[in-house]
């Protein structure tokens, strides 16, 4: 009898998270360089984008000087990195404000939208389980509809929703975020659904496959052969054991919602981070674009870290960072 300790040693967990945070810093450094480089390689002059085609050469030169636009690439990068290390993301060219104060008011609304969409996405787990345990009409119905849902880009869903619930039926507001919690919920409903539809489909398919796989395992048959009630077998054995892949895919999908918000926020006139990204790219507002890109990377890396820790929690055979057997 091997007498090893609990599946998730506290020491191991702390070490693991520490190591991953260190690698997060390295990842950010590499990403920041790539982002900075990519943004700089795109053609166009931010000063001209800001001041318009009739700007005087003097005005343009002034902007160039203020934002160090004429310095060599590496010098600009070093300057920006130095600012980052002090928590200073630079100044937005289009808003003539610090990037942090441009982002701050928008983080909340985008956060709410993402959380709403993430909650809706979890419906996919229910659909997947239903499909797995009810072969026949229910399964076929869910498989067909989730296939369609998966193939629907969020902007198509947005257009459909607006046409039906916004314009034709007039049930839900089409633009803005509203005041007060109820109005906020109503305003965010269509955008959240638009974000979630294809993810619900994906998560349902992953759940269905995982639960079906587990239902075919011997331990599930053994549980039934011991007279364990069917619902409990599904919950405590099949779904429980399929949680690993479901959480991994679910987590990655939820992190990805942040990216899709740029389309949906623009479509629904929501002044969040996604809409800001679209505007800033159009305006060549480099400091803002860079900050948003970094933020996205951080969200993905942190989500991966969370997924790894949770995966080790739900499956004792998974050592943190290493998969046994």
């Amino acid at each position, binding site marked *: *009898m*091997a*007498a*090893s300790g609990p*599946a998730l040693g506290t020491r191991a967990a702390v070490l693991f998270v520490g190591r991953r945070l260190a690698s997060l810093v390295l990842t950010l450094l590499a990403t920041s360089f790539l982002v900075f480089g990519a943004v700089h390689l795109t053609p166009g002059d931010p000063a001209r984008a800001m001041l318009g085609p009739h700007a005087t050469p003097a005005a343009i030169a002034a902007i160039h000087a203020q934002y160090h636009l004429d310095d060599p690439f590496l010098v600009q990068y070093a300057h920006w990195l130095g600012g980052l290390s002090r928590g200073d993301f630079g100044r937005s060219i289009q808003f003539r404000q610090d990037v942090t104060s441009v982002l701050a008011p928008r983080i909340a609304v985008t956060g709410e939208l993402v959380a709403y969409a993430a909650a809706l996405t979890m419906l996919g787990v229910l659909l997947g389980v239903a499909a797995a345990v009810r072969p026949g009409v229910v399964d076929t119905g869910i498989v067909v509809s989730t296939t369609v849902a998966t193939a629907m880009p969020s902007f198509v869903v947005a257009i459909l929703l607006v046409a039906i619930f916004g314009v034709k039926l007039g049930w839900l507001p089409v633009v803005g975020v509203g005041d007060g919690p109820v109005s906020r919920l109503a305003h965010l409903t269509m955008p959240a659904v638009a974000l979630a539809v294809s993810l619900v489909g994906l998560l349902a398919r992953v759940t269905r496959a995982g639960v079906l796989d587990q239902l075919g*395992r*011997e*331990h599930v*048959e*053994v*549980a*039934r*052969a*011991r*007279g*364990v*009630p069917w619902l*409990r077998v599904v919950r*405590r*054995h099949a779904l*429980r*054991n399929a949680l690993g892949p479901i959480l991994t895919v679910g987590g990655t999908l939820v992190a990805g919602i942040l990216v899709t918000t740029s389309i949906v926020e623009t479509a629904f006139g929501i002044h969040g981070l996604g809409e800001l990204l679209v505007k800033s790219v159009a305006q060549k507002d480099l400091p803002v674009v860079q900050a948003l890109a970094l933020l996205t990377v951080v969200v993905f890396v942190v989500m991966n870290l969370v997924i790894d820790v949770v995966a080790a929690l*739900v*499956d*004792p*055979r998974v050592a943190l960072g290493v998969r*046994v*057997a």
Partner: protein
Amino acid sequence: MTDISVLEIDRLTVSLGSGRAARPILDEVTVRVDTGEVVGLVGESGSGKSVTCRAALGLLPRGARVNGSVRVAGTEVVGLRGSGLRALRSRQVAMIYQDPRACVNPVRRIGDFLTEGLRTGLGMSAAQAQERIIELLELVGIRDPRAAMRQFPHEFSGGMLQRMVIAAALAPEPALLLADEPTTALDVTTQAEVIAVLTALRASRGTGMLFVTHDLELASAICDRIYVMYAGRVVEHAPVRRLFTRPRHPYTAALLMSTPTLASTNARLVAIEGRPVGLAEAPPGCSFAGRCVHVRDGCRDTVPPLRPVLERVSTGDALEAATQSAACLFEGELGDLLAPRSVVVPDAVSGCVG
């Protein structure tokens, strides 16, 4: 032995699919296990041992067509569903499987596995279930059962895990225990230990057991009676001593000749020629005809019925002879041709488990 049967399988016929695609798996299999008895089910791969065994749990393959009857402690299992079936499974009959690692949920604590049957089936509280399980774990030789229950399956060896599966199976005090090759996946020393634990615990509770195995030597050591299966049919049935000293079916005789520790010391080991077949691939008539060294005209015409063996030689164990039956058309003529000249039969139980 009392005359109360805990398992009565009566002319069980099972096939999968229907019409032209029908695939027969079992043909009129009849097996009985009495209270406190250990009954062996032996035969080569694909002969239908597992299907027979699982039938007692009402666990036949999805879409199987079933004829005949399976009664466990008096309850008809064929056609039983829902809460009736769950009650049977959680109280009357339990099974031990070949691979303990595959049959225990790998992501839950072993204690959850052990107590789950008692809690969902017998409605015990967590504390009651835990208490009963801890007692049993001590009996099967787990040191520090309390700590063991908090561990995960992958932290135990196969032998330890199999002991716990045995404890879980015996926990609800079932009338019938099914063991489908419970030691095949274990190494030899562990095998002996697990068999010792299993037989001792079963005997102390008077639980009837159907023991499925490839291993004739093991069967001879622990069983009271043995059914020999070939291609989905029972071809011979006899008390263990009788079977090993006077087999009355050419297949049984061939199995004995191919088993090193059972074949007579001065006779050559003879492997059975050809491959074992399932019922679906079996030839018409006697399904063993393709491999039988005694095959003759008529063997392929009719399926030999399982008939009581008529005793011709007076050997003193006439009582046992009356309970022997074989399914060979020429059993009467072949007679002692089949008997190995000298066979070493280990003493019951103690012979193997020491």
